[in-house]
Structures are given as structure tokens and as C-alpha cells.
């Protein structure tokens, strides 16, 4: 019994903070999403009316589409490049640490800073516009971020640039856990590089790949800061979290409506991130 109390005493500051600032708000937002709560108006219960309204709201549906384009466009590219880089750095060679640190650098930089740098690079007559015209393309007249056709893709490109190094590090840690003897044995038996990759690396990397896909899915569906800094949601770049921010904290202060959007996104993330989880993370270790 004393052990139980001692344990609880040690856990309580953490658990109380978690309950007050995270668990309670998560629950509260379900309730909010079922009300018409707005600034200066007391919430009254309206059932799922917010959800039904959202599904007919073209701003929301546009944001939903943009978010899916962002997620489906960035995750495969990021994952493939990150894996390729990790494979290039898998075995020790001179300069490996330098490359690893260099590739990881963008991730350590504040996303606001990255967004500011790229706003400059993407600007009208800026570095990338000049580069595009040198290569024979016509850059958008007012810069990449001021054009419906390019703005979202420009931001996606920046996001890939920023996250590749992070996922590469996780892949590398996964690769390091693969016993070297397996490769040696396979090489002795004359297995080609591709064969070793398919029969050793890929199967043993599955849990790590699953983890990477899940966390990247969760993160990418919530893209907000780069949109806020670079376009303020204009030029067809508004994502769902940007929509939530606009609805809840700018002109209307429609807390109920925005909460419903947040919950819809929550459900979408839950469903989508379960997919790779089911496909890849079958053998999970016991937690204890």
C-alpha cells in the first residue's frame, strides 16, 4: 500500500498537468463541437449540426482537399528520399558524420525561420524564379507563393526539404539495429545489393517504416505554421488547421464550429494513420 501511495505521489504532478491541459481539453472539445459556442454567446447544444454544416462548407472542403494534397504529396517523397539517404550513410566511411549532421540541420531550424527564408527564395524575381527562367521555365508572374497553381506545391517542396533529414536519422537508427553478419553472410553467398536490400534491409526495417509513416501522417495533416507565415491561407493553400484557426481565432470566434472541424480532422488522422500501423507494425515488443 505504501508503495502504491509513493508511486502516486511521484506521478501526480505529471498526471495532473496532463489531465488539466491535455486530457480535459480533448474531452471538452467534443462537447464544444456539438454546440454553437461563439464569442459573447453562451453555448447551446445543437447536436451534429456543425458537422453537417462543415460537409457543405466549400471553404472547409477546399481546406480538406489542400490538406490531402499536402499529405499525399509530401509523405511518399520525404520517405523515399530519407530512406535513400539513410542507405547511403548506412556503413561507416570518411565524412559520414558531417553529411548526417548537414542533412539534419534544416529540422533543427525553427519552421518560422525556414518559412521566412523560403518566402524570400520563392519571391518574384527571387533566387528560384531566376533559376527557373535559366532552366527555360516561366516562373509565375508574382512569385511562386502568389499563384494558385504553384503556392501549395512550393510549400510542400519546402516541407520535404525540411523533414528529410529527420526521417533519415530515424531510418539510420533502424538500419544500425540490423546485425552486420546478415549482410556478410548474404554477400558471401553472392547476393546482389538489390537482393540484400529486399531480403534483409526492407523486412527488418518494417517497424521503423511503420513508425515513420504514422508520425509523419499525424504531423502532416496538422500543417499550419508554414501556411500562416508564407501565404496566410491565400492562393488555395488553406489547410484544415488553418481553417480552424481562422474560424476560431480571427473574425468570427466560432469556437463550436471550429471544434467540429478539429474533431473531423482528428477522426481522419485516426483512420488514416491506422492504415500503415496495421500494415507494418505487426510485431510490437512488450512495453515492460
Amino acid at each position, binding site marked *: 500500500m505504501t508503495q*502504491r501511495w*509513493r*508511486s502516486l505521489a*511521484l*506521478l501526480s*504532478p*505529471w498526471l495532473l*498537468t*496532463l489531465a488539466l*491541459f*491535455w486530457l*480535459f*481539453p*480533448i474531452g*471538452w*472539445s467534443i462537447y*464544444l463541437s456539438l454546440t454553437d459556442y461563439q464569442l459573447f454567446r453562451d453555448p447551446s447544444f445543437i447536436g451534429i449540426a456543425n458537422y453537417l454544416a462543415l460537409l457543405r462548407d466549400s471553404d472547409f472542403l477546399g481546406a480538406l482537399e489542400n490538406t490531402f494534397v499536402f499529405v499525399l504529396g509530401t509523405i511518399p517523397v520525404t520517405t523515399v528520399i530519407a530512406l535513400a*539517404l539513410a542507405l*547511403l550513410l548506412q556503413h561507416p*566511411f570518411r565524412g559520414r558524420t558531417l*553529411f*548526417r549532421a*548537414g*542533412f*539534419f*540541420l*534544416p529540422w*533543427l*531550424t*525553427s*519552421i*518560422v*525561420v525556414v518559412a*521566412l*527564408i523560403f518566402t*524570400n*527564395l520563392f519571391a518574384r524575381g527571387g*533566387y528560384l524564379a531566376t533559376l527557373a527562367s535559366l532552366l527555360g521555365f516561366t516562373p509565375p508572374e508574382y512569385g511562386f507563393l502568389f499563384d494558385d497553381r504553384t503556392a501549395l506545391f512550393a510549400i510542400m517542396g519546402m516541407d520535404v*526539404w525540411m523533414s528529410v533529414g*529527420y526521417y533519415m*536519422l*530515424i531510418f539510420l*537508427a533502424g538500419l544500425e*539495429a540490423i546485425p552486420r553478419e546478415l549482410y556478410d553472410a548474404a554477400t558471401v553467398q553472392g547476393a546482389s545489393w538489390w537482393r540484400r536490400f529486399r531480403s534483409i534491409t526492407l523486412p527488418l526495417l518494417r517497424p*521503423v517504416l511503420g513508425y*515513420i509513416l504514422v508520425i509523419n501522417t499525424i504531423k502532416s495533416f*496538422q500543417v*499550419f*505554421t508554414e501556411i500562416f507565415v508564407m501565404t496566410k491561407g491565400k492562393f488555395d493553400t488553406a489547410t484544415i488547421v488553418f481553417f*480552424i*484557426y481562422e474560424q*476560431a*481565432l480571427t473574425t468570427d470566434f466560432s469556437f463550436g464550429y*471550429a*471544434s467540429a472541424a*478539429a*474533431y473531423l*480532422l482528428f477522426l481522419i488522422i485516426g483512420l488514416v494513420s491506422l492504415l500503415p500501423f496495421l500494415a507494418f507494425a505487426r510485431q510490437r*515488443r512488450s512495453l*515492460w
Partner: protein
Amino acid sequence: MVTTLFRYGLLGLVLMITIFPMLWMLRVALLPKGLPLTAETLLSVTVTGANVLALLDSDGLVRPFFNSLVVGGGVTIGNILFGFMCAYALSRYRLIENRFILFTVLAVLFVPVHIVIIPLYLLAVESGLYDTYGALILPFLVNPIGIFLVKQYLDGIPTAMEEAARVDGASEFRILFQIVMPMARPALVVLAIQVFFTNWNSFLFPFILTSRSDLHTLPVALAMIQGRQGIEWPELMAGATLAVVPVLVVFVILQRHIVSGITAGAIKQ
């Protein structure tokens, strides 16, 4: 030989692409105001520290820099203390409810944080925390990945020392903070770096939980400056540099710890 050359060539190319925007930031930050950002000006030898100095002037980025340090420091110390206590309990007291708590900790790791934007904002407003340092520190004292990291480390430390101390009559408090905590230092360092960096760079929550400019952290201040009338790129890039340099310095010194912190969540052994 050919493969080696190919490998270095490829890696070098990628490295150039990753480093280039950072070098661009530095170059523009050192450029005098009012010049067009053309190849001639960028490649010229003109260098000035005026932008950095201007930002350090009265209404510049000194206050946000200070705020970022205070908030980051507060959050980091809180996480070390709470996280260590929590991890110790989860590691040493194998009770049924602790198994459940550990599961909750892991589940929270996967909860999309956007879901608390509105309720956390409302909670901060209602409780009076809005526009205080408390709003920037208190909700972030719990970092699930930190708990996991430290618990794993403690699991690997034999309990013999603790038991010996207990036999000698040391109080549980002393055992916890004078015997176990120093032994857990490597894990706590990783936790501290991870938490501090995340906090130093975070934008969304500091942005929604404060409105007063004297409470802005660096990322929020930079995002706000961008919209200001008459601001020029050299000044903005100087501000960006100010936010990046401390991170770079710490990264160069503590690279190993940072890498192990990042990968701790992925590889559970």
C-alpha cells in the same frame, strides 16, 4: 572506386541543397538595407552588421530572445523534474495502474495536438493564464517521449545502489534525488535538449496563447515582424539568424545526445 565517387558526388549535391538556404539567410542578413537582391549584390563583398545591431535595438528582438530563453528554460526544468519522478515511479513500481499509465503516456504521443488549440485557448482565457508566462510554460511541462526515454534508461540501471541506501536508512527523497537522479543524467540530458529545442522553435501554441508583444517568443516575433510595414529582407534574415545561431552552437557541441533523443521514440529495445 566509381561507386565511392558516385556516393560522394550524390551526398555532396544533397548537402549543397540542404545547406544553401541557410547560407542564403546569412548572406542576406549581412547585406546593407535598400539594395536589390540580385546576383551582383549577393556576390559582392559588401558586408554589414547593421541589421543585426538594429534588431538588438530597443524595440527589436532582445525581449523575444529573452522570452524564448525563460520559457524554454522553465519548460525544460519542469520536464526534467516531473518527467524524472514519473519515469522513476513507472520503472520501479510495477503496479497494475502504472501499466495503464504508461499506455496512456504512449497514446498521448500519438494524439494530434491541433485538437486542443481551441479548448486550451479558452481554458487559458477563462483561468487568467492567457498572456502570461504561465500559459507558455505550464501546459508543456509534460512531454510523453521524455517519460518513455527516461523510463527505458532507468530500467537498465540495477537497483542495488538504491537498496543499499535504503538499508543504510536514507530517505526515499534522498534516494530519488541524490542517488538515482545523478545516475540517470545521460537520459536527462537527452530529454533536456529535446524539450528545449522543441520549445525554442515552437510557434503554434505561443502564438495562440499570447497577444501582448512583450510576451512574444522569437518565432512568434519573427512571424509578426514579417507583416510589418517597411521591413526589409536583410532585417528579417538577421532576425532569423538570431533564432538559428544558438541552436547551431548547441547542435555542434551536443550532436550525439540530440541524435539519440530523436531516435529514442522509434527504436524501442
